[in-house]
């Protein structure tokens, strides 16, 4: 029953929303989102767990912002983008004597930067009026990180890697087509979407023996807003 209702809703949305003219080529897109992140630092140890000792096992939010330029539009859109973000996790420093937790604070901070190539199958919306846009991307990643103790920097560095992402965007233009047309006319935003994607990343300096692994423990998922303009 539920799939049938969902299908009907999708058809209704598709019928309600006039697709974008095929001749309107987007300049690019802006993506703003966040997802839970926990680096895989402890994976290099057989028995120790320094990250978990200090910061515990729960992830913290990593915020991401991506600006992309459309390189090619035809059957879908190919974009080249720059992505950055921020992650910070704070915990208690441990005693040098017995490793117990102390009152001092220490934090691990990451500013991930990426060069991203994205393919978005936006012809589903543009030509067929189906308000869904699947997309895939690959990225070169560089995670700039630093550690603090009592708000003073103690160590910093950068770790490189790569990633692949699969995602789906729900085009909100279908919800209120007249408002969407007004936004496009006034601001130039062709499509406003909610997205959800999953990223597999390997951020360990390409397997270097002198680097830790800042890849997400499992798959990194994120959600947020995608604006095509």
């Amino acid at each position, binding site marked *: 029953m539920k799939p049938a209702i969902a299908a009907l809703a999708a058809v209704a949305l598709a019928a309600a929303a006039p697709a974008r003219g095929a001749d309107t080529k987007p300049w690019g897109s802006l993506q703003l989102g966040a997802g839970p992140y926990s680096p895989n630092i402890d994976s290099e140890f057989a028995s120790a767990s320094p990250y978990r000792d200090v910061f515990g096992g729960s992830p913290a939010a990593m915020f991401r912002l991506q600006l992309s330029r459309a390189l090619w539009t035809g059957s879908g859109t190919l974009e080249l983008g720059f992505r950055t973000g921020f992650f910070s996790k704070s915990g208690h420093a441990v005693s040098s004597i017995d490793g117990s937790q102390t*009152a001092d604070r220490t934090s691990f901070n990451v500013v991930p930067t990426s*060069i991203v190539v994205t393919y978005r199958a936006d012809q589903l919306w543009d030509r067929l009026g189906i308000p869904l846009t699947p997309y895939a991307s690959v990225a070169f990643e560089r995670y700039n990180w630093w550690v603090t103790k009592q708000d003073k920097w103690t160590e910093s560095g950068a770790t490189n890697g790569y990633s692949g992402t699969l995602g789906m965007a729900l085009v909100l233009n279908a919800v209120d087509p007249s408002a969407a047309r007004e936004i496009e006319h006034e601001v130039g935003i062709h499509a406003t979407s909610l997205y959800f994607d999953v990223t597999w990343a390997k951020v360990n300096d*390409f397997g270097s023996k002198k680097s830790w692994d800042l890849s997400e423990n499992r798959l990194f998922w994120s959600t947020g807003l995608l604006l095509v303009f």
Partner: protein
Amino acid sequence: MDRREDRLLVKSIDRWTRMRTVALLLLLAAPALVVAQTTPTTEGTINTSGSYINLAQCNGTDPATVEPLLGLSNDLGLRWLVKMDGTAFDTSGKFQPWAANQQPSTNGTSGLVTCSQPPSGATGFVSNSLEAAFDAPLQNTASTHSYAMRDVVTKAGFDCSQDGKTIYLCANWLQNGTTPHGWATGTVTLDLTPPASAPTNLHLTAGDGVLHVNCDGNSDIVSFKAKATAAEESQPHYSNKASSCGDVVITGLVNSRTYTVVVYGMDVADNPSGPSASQDMAPVPTDDFWTHYKDAGGREQGGCSTSGAAGLLGLLSLLALRRRRP
């Protein structure tokens, strides 16, 4: 004369009547305007360095024993500004500050407060000058003077058993050094009762050269301060003063040296409670995340990695070449 000329004539008469009415009103108001311009603005407020005088300050306890814990002075600073306009001001004027146990006399018409005079019908009025009148040669300039709190209490006719009493502070600007003409007033309250009980549930957490304090305090405690002593040291260490006990930190301690810590709670007037039950603890050297990671045998070297930078350069080069093609 047609209708149009009639209307113009009526309009002209109306305008002339209005102008005469305005002129008459201005004439009638002239004396009032003159008075408003010459009436001096002569009142002001005395701002004090604190709103309360606590028990130690009232007793004039040696600041050397009070200040390390409370960070307070036993002097009460007064600052006042009496605004005088040009017609009232003269350079022979003097200021004289007073302390009284009641609001001094206030003239019902001019509002002039005469610091030395009791209010109408008052009994038991006490007012004494805090010092002899002194020159006030500068116009519209704030005066700042300070007086021992113990003297202020005594001059107002109080002693240190009279908790909750209000001391009325008053400064007169004396025209020609004799006649009160301008004034400034303020108050300070005697708060002589310390908090009913000391903070409880003292809990210490060690850090690198520091001890973090936590405790509970009863409702009349509004701030906390801790003291740490060690057998090896002659002088105690005092923490910051914080409104929440959890924000109290004692710094500058020696790692692995045991300190005995007590915490005091202070009320709004900074009357300290008795000390809490003491606790012993030693600060410890601590490892931040990076040190803990390296101590565990972590392989990351820190610094900016060059691995992958070549790949990034290659990618950028490819993109640059692609854009140059026609």
